[in-house]
Structure formats: C-alpha cells, structure tokens
C-alpha cells in the first residue's frame, strides 16, 4: 500500500506530514476488530429481550384482568367468527371455518386452543403450540385469522380492536405471539 499522505475527510491542518495524519484511518481499521466489550454488549442485549418475556406476560395478564374464566376467540379479517369459553376439563371442541376458498380447523382441547389444519402454504399456525394463557395468540396471516385467549368476556370487545392493529403490518407470514415456537 502507498504510504498514507492524509485522510480523505480529515481537517486541512492534518494534511502536511503531521505525525497523526492517518489517525482517522487507524480508528476506522481498529474498529473492524471485534472486542470483548462487543460480546458482552450483545449477550446482555440478548438476555434483556428474553428476561422481558415474563415481565411482558404478567403485564398482559393484568391488562386482561383475568376473572378466572378464559375465552377462546377466533377473528377472521376483523370479524369474530367463533367464541368459546375455555375449560381444560371440557371435551375437545372443534371449529371448522370455510370461507372464500380458505378453510381452517381450530380445536379447543385440554391443552388450549390450536390450529388442527389450515390450507395456508406456511403452516406456521398448525405448528404453533397450543395457547391457553390470556393474551396469547396464534396468527395465520395468509388467512387473516387470529386465535386469541382473552381473560374475561367483559373487555372482549376492546380486545378485538387491538388484535387487529398489529396484523395490519403482518404480511405473508404467520407466527405465534407469546411462547414462540419455531416450526
């Protein structure tokens, strides 16, 4: 490499053969090597994300003001198509939804609600774990379907509004919100 004369964007006084002429270049090269502090920072940030999960869960539970009675709600394109009071000791209940050439089967069983089958290509909703905690949801974006557990029937109406909000930004993907389980 040629002997450094001066840096491209450095101040003019550094140009003429001063010892620190290529100090900026040195900083830019030094910054390319990973440091211990980076690893510490990344690990801490990674943990912060996951430590917040229980906090978020408890916040969501308080938000939904659980009265002991849980309800499973299925929302398709913003419309409630199915409501069912969830009791783990009950017999499994199947709900089949068929509309506009899309069909899905949702089962409410002892472990909670899950999507038994769906005609979407991703099948993320089918592979999602059953949901039984208030605030949890399974989203199937291709079919614009959300299965959600809500705490009490009273604030159910407000819940549907909020459940539709984030889905506006969801496109072509489906996942499970809360207790995420990669398929």
């Amino acid at each position, binding site marked *: *490499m*040629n*002997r*450094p*004369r*001066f*840096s*491209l*964007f450095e101040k*003019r006084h550094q140009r003429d053969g001063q010892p620190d002429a*290529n100090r900026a*270049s040195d*900083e*830019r*090269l*030094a*910054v*390319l*090597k*990973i*440091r211990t*502090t*980076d690893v510490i*920072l*990344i690990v801490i*940030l*990674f943990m*912060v*994300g*996951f430590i*917040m*999960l229980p906090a*978020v869960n408890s*916040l*969501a539970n308080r*938000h939904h003001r659980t009265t002991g009675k849980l309800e499973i709600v299925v929302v398709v394109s913003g419309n409630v198509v199915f409501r069912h009071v969830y009791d783990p000791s009950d017999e499994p209940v199947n709900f089949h939804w068929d509309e506009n050439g899309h069909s899905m089967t949702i089962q409410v069983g002892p472990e909670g609600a899950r999507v038994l089958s769906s005609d979407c290509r*991703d099948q*993320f909703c089918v592979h999602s774990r059953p949901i039984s905690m208030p*605030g*949890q*949801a399974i*989203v199937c*974006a291709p079919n614009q379907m959300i299965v959600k557990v809500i705490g009490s029937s009273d604030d159910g109406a407000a819940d549907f509004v*909020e*459940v539709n*909000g*984030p889905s*506006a*930004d*969801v*496109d*072509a*993907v*489906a*996942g499970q*919100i*809360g207790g*995420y389980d*990669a*398929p």
Partner: protein
Amino acid sequence: MRHKLSKMTMTSVLIALALALAIAENLVIPLLRIPIPGAKIGLSNVAVLVAIYFVGPWYAFVVMLVRVFVVFIFGGNTVALVFSLFGGVMAYLTMLILRNSKRFSLFGISAGGAFAHALGQITAAIIMTGSISVLFYLPILTGFSLAAGIVVAILAVPIFKALVKFENSSYSSEL
C-alpha cells in the same frame, strides 16, 4: 469548499447505496420466509455506518432520514413510515452513542443499533395500536435483530477496508 463538496458527494453516494440496499432487501426478504412479522436485516444500515465513520454524524443522519422518506415516497405506506422513522432514529442515536464511547467495535455498534431499531419499532407499534400485545414480539424480534446487526457489521468490514485503502492512496489527494 472542496472539503465540504467531497463530503456531500460521498453522502449522496451513500444515500444511493442505502436506497439500493433497502429496495433489494424488500425484494429478497419475502422469499426467505422468516417466520417473524416485520423482521428485516436492515442492510441499508451499512451505508449509515460508513457515513458515521467516513463522513460525519450529521451526514449519517441525513443518509438515514433520506432513505426513510424516499422509501416512503415509493412505497407510500404511512404506517411503515412511522415504523421506520422511529426505528431509524433510535438506531442512529444508539450507534452514535456507542461509537463515541470508543469502547465498541463495528460489531457491537451495529448490533446495538439493530436492537434499538427493534425497540423503536415496537414502541411505534404500541403507540399506533394502543395495545401492549405487540410486546410479545420483543424477545424474538430483539434476538433476530442482534443477529441481523452482526450480519450488517460483517458486510461493512470489506467496505471499510476498501475506503481506508482509497483514502490513503494517491487518488484521494485530489479531493
């Protein structure tokens, strides 16, 4: 005058780079089928990183801002504008703070910026939907964003090396 002109030229080149990367990313991301809504690698952050180190913090801010607004003009999605504006400003501020602390390398700075970007987007989502249900995305989104930040840093390394080489070569003496 020359000095400022070269900075402005460099900034416009970096804006073009940021836009090209943002558009390329929007084309490629749906094909990858990442099962996280709203997940992006944030490739255009490479341009912001280069601008912070080679041009100056304010020029980097301009690169970020112009990128957000031009993508909005072509995409026309107001919701996406608010999301990327929140995320972009948060990421920019975080990267600047981490850079000025002089304790971190490109990897830490980029990962921190990506983390802040995810946090900013979640904040925007909470404000816009008035719901905290979005917070459920936080762990998976931050985990993904850290990985994305490291990828961005890896991509920025050869660009940094090439630019430093250019700076020290005889070509740059005319600028």
